């Protein structure tokens, strides 16, 4: 997204709510599994029955600490939880337990590659290649719990409440307004999401969105300082929506400024069908949430290797221990990949793998290939970024592809390709047939035979075939004398047409050259 004119600059910041993938909720023992029948995962606390008390789920705090390390945050070794008061029917206690005055983590950053998914309408990728790694500062991360869900029954004019989500653990990540464009925003969120999955903080599940974003967007005149005005777009649930919402908002604000209309701070929502943001309320109507420390929960004390561990609490958390057990971050993973496959893998390749969602699949395949077999590794990369990319709509259907074509099958096909049982041309065909195959038991050989796709390598068969083609095309044989390159190419096309997908280019080119040289000599 670029501005229509050169007069403005933008500030974009996010508040990101991450649903923690813990077995139980953050303050109760109820299950936190997504997408269950309504009101089946509700403990006494989750519906605020009088006399019920919260008890912190240790694994939520641990997940939070992993996130803090992933975002290079400073960690408060003593922080506390607070009550944020507001009345809403799906918030049964009348307050949300969160962190306001002292969050457990603050002052971090995330470096991310500028990679956005293809927009189906605009079909554009990365606009700026000079500054390919960007950095966004993180203001704070806080632990909190989610509210229930209101379901509006238009027919009966009533609101129903589902408390399954009430009390599930959330991390709220607040960024600085370091993001300038919608593509940067989307790229940032995608890298954050990779980190969340690598560190097992949230689930990669299609059932419910584990990441919800509030985007703060403001456009300002160049050479002026930000006025503090901002528009908050609440509750956007997909990264593409974030990009489109931000785009819409930037354009809207720019147009307002160009027309000299006043801009005011407000809260908006995004309608993904109409692709536009809609006004909800003005920001001037500031709500006082009457924050107060949660008296039922002791402060969150964290320890590191230098501390004397508490004797009275066996459940203490040592953050250095968590740090030692952290898996590689996606950033580090990519660094290591580049060293490991330095012979053929470029940064651009890595970004392509990310862009087309092929990174995990690629790594799975690599794990099954001999580390010294660079040729095969290279071939795999090539097939992925060419045939597979085409087949999966630029990676959009990669999930489905991975499910059907398991790494073993894929390597089997690559193996056939290397052994010349199949040709480079039929590869796409074979992948596509396997991909759409309704009978998973069917072996690769059967598929090849049924579709007559076995490559022809036998010279005794090939020579007469080539001779036949030359005989059928006397004009081309003539042409060989004047323009051998073009003649051979056209002969190759002719034989490929006759035996679709079964011809190895190098073999027939040699034979054609042989025969024609003999004829002309």
């Amino acid at each position, binding site marked *: 997204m670029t501005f229509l004119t050169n007069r403005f600059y933008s500030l974009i910041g996010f508040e990101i709510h991450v649903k923690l993938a813990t077995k139980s909720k953050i303050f109760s023992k109820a299950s936190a599994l997504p997408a269950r029948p309504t009101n089946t995962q509700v403990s*006494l606390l989750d519906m605020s029955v009088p*006399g*019920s*008390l919260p008890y912190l789920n240790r694994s939520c705090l641990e997940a939070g600490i992993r996130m803090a390390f992933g975002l290079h945050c400073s960690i408060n070794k003593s922080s506390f939880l607070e009550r944020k008061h507001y*009345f809403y*029917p799906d918030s049964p*206690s*009348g307050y949300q337990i969160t962190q306001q005055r002292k969050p457990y983590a603050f002052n971090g950053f995330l470096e991310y590659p500028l990679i956005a998914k293809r927009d189906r309408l605009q079909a554009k990728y990365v606009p700026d290649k000079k500054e390919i790694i960007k950095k966004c500062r993180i203001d704070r991360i806080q632990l909190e719990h989610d509210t229930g869900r209101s379901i509006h029954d238009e027919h009966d004019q009533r609101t129903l409440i589902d408390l399954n989500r009430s009390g599930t653990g959330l991390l709220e990540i607040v960024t600085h307004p370091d993001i300038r464009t919608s593509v940067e925003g989307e790229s940032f969120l995608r890298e954050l999401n990779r980190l969340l999955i690598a560190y097992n903080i949230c689930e990669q599940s299609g059932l419910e969105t584990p990441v919800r974003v509030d985007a703060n967007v403001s456009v300002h005149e160049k050479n002026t300082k930000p006025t503090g005005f901002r528009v908050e777009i609440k509750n956007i649930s997909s990264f593409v929506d974030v990009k489109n919402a931000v785009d819409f908002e930037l354009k809207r604000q720019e147009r307002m400024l160009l027309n000299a209309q006043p801009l005011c701070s407000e809260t908006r929502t995004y309608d993904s069908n109409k692709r536009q943001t809609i006004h909800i309320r003005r920001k001037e109507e500031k709500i006082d949430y009457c924050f107060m420390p949660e*008296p039922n929960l002791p402060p969150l004390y964290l320890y590191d290797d230098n501390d004397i561990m508490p004797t009275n*609490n066996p459940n203490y958390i040592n953050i250095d221990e968590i740090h030692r057990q952290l898996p590689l971050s996606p950033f580090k993973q990519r660094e290591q990949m580049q060293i490991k496959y330095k012979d053929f893998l470029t940064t651009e390749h890595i970004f392509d793998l990310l862009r087309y969602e092929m990174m995990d699949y690629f790594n799975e395949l690599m794990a099954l290939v001999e580390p010294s077999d660079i040729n095969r590794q290279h071939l795999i990369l090539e097939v992925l970024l060419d045939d597979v990319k085409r087949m999966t709509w630029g990676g959009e259907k990669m999930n489905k592809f991975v499910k059907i074509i398991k790494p073993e099958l894929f390597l089997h096909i690559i193996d056939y390709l290397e052994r010349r049982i199949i040709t480079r041309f039929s590869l796409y065909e074979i992948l596509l047939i396997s991909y759409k195959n309704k009978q998973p038991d069917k072996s690769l050989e059967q598929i090849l035979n049924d579709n007559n796709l076995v490559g022809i390598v036998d010279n005794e068969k090939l020579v007469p075939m080539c001779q036949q083609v030359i005989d059928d095309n006397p004009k081309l044989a003539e042409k060989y004398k004047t323009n051998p390159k073009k003649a051979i190419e056209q002969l190759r096309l002719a034989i490929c047409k006759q035996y679709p997908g079964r011809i190895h280019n190098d073999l027939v080119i040699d034979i054609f050259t042989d025969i024609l040289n003999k004829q002309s000599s």
Partner: protein
Amino acid sequence: MENVSKEKLRCTIQLVLKDADISIITMKDVRNTLSTLLACDMDHRKHEINDIVRSEILLRDSTTMNTADNRKNNYEQNGTSTDSIPDEINHLSHPQSHHFSSDVTFEDIRKLQAKFANERNWNRYHTPRNLLLALVGEVGELAELFQWKNEVLEGLPDWTSTERQNVSDELIVKDNYCVSNTLTTCASKTLKDFQSPYTSTIIQRLIDQGGIVIGKTNMDEFSMGTASWGYMGPVVNPWSLKTTEKHIAGGSSGGSAAAVAANLVPISIGSDTGGSVRAPAARCGCYGFKASYGLLSRYGLISLVNSFDSPGIFSRTISDIVLTMNAMAGPDEEDATLLQKPFEHIELSGQNEEKKKIVIGLPEEYDIESLSDEYRSCWFEVIDQLTSLGYEIKRCNLPYTKYSIACYTVLASCEITSNMARFDGIKYGYRTKNVEKGATYEQILTKTRNESLGERVRGRILAGNYFLREENYDSYFVQSQKVRRAIVHDYSTLFSTGNIDCLLAPVVSDDPPTFEEYQNTNEIFTSDDLLTVGVNLAGLPALSFPVKLSKKGFPISLQLIGPFMKDKQLLQLANKICSIFQFPFLDLTKDDS
């Protein structure tokens, strides 16, 4: 009369039994019918008739379905039908002196049960069948205690005291503790129909150890107040039952205090947020113990002020407090504010490790202006007695005490505001009917809260909202937290560097006001609060104990305040000190009292 032949008698009995259901009919029924049919008194031929009935029943059983032995076994196993069978059969298996009355019929029991249920308005919840099953359950629990015992002698002479306790402990619980499937109202209109789906931890622990919860007691609405006068009306001080004017029982756990003081139950449970156990215990004349914050689980206790709330015990002996504490205290994975280490059981008889001189502190700040001369002189009398018994008495100061009421008011109001936010009429509790269909959430919320929360409760909510406003937060809430820390420091310095073992102080300043007097005061907080709230701010253990009666005939009590988590030492010391007084405990279960 005598001329009715044995044959005729047998025929008539056969006739009577023919159409009767022998599982219901009693010997008395048979005799009554016979005397009507034969127009004569059958009582003197009781044994003869019994013999005939017995042989008839045995004959019928052997011919129809059961052998006689089986039948007898059935009778024995099914305790509820014993009174319908001939006395002789009972005699066969029970050679002892124990008899079941042959005069009570099942119909009588059914009527009694219906009456019992009616009186308690249980019909809303319990069908007769439901009650019967509950009864069988209770009987089963009782039976379990007897299961592995051999023959049990009357009075259980060879049972240990704990075993006997299990059978006998009846207790009564303040109505802000959740007990599964009972009303838990907090004496508020909001929760007047609220059936708790679970039982609070400490009550469950008491039940597990044989306690039998026989009821819930009245209180101030959500424990806010000092008269135990909530939506359901006031609690009468048991010492003023015979007087024309009724006096308050103190609050907020007044119902629990009054029940124990009147000897209706040996033990009752209350909660102490700002003196709600100690004050009513002092006014009603029984022991009232508030444990250290963090020893007793608050799970299932409907929160007033989370960081002050402490469950408390009322009893007529200190050993009952110890027994109850041992049953209830200890870590609970539902309450995160508890001390994590296991609770060390208290033994009263245990030898004190060190034989040094006990030092008792007298906090000068507790000698408040409103303390009546009579109450002050009682305090000093006790001090004199203790001095003469060899205790060392030391005057001491708690300089921040004068700020304690202000500090308590701010912190309490803030937490109350927050805790009350859940009563919106959506999930449970009272919900307004004065809105039209399609009313907004805000409309339902406002009406519901206006109609169901008492004035005192709404006042505190309003105050709390004010203190918590962003611009007021630092000058009220934060400031009060600082004062609280200073108060905690006051106490801990006295106990550690001042070498004081416990403090002795009054609990209330004068005899309880009458209902009328109480209604005419507008103050939410009284100067008496100064005597009690400090302990809650610092989370200390404290025991209120009755010393003697005032001129007007109300109990005068004092309190012992111990160092944090020194509950055991405090109770051991209290046990010694209290043995010097002979307080004339009230007993309303005796007719002459």
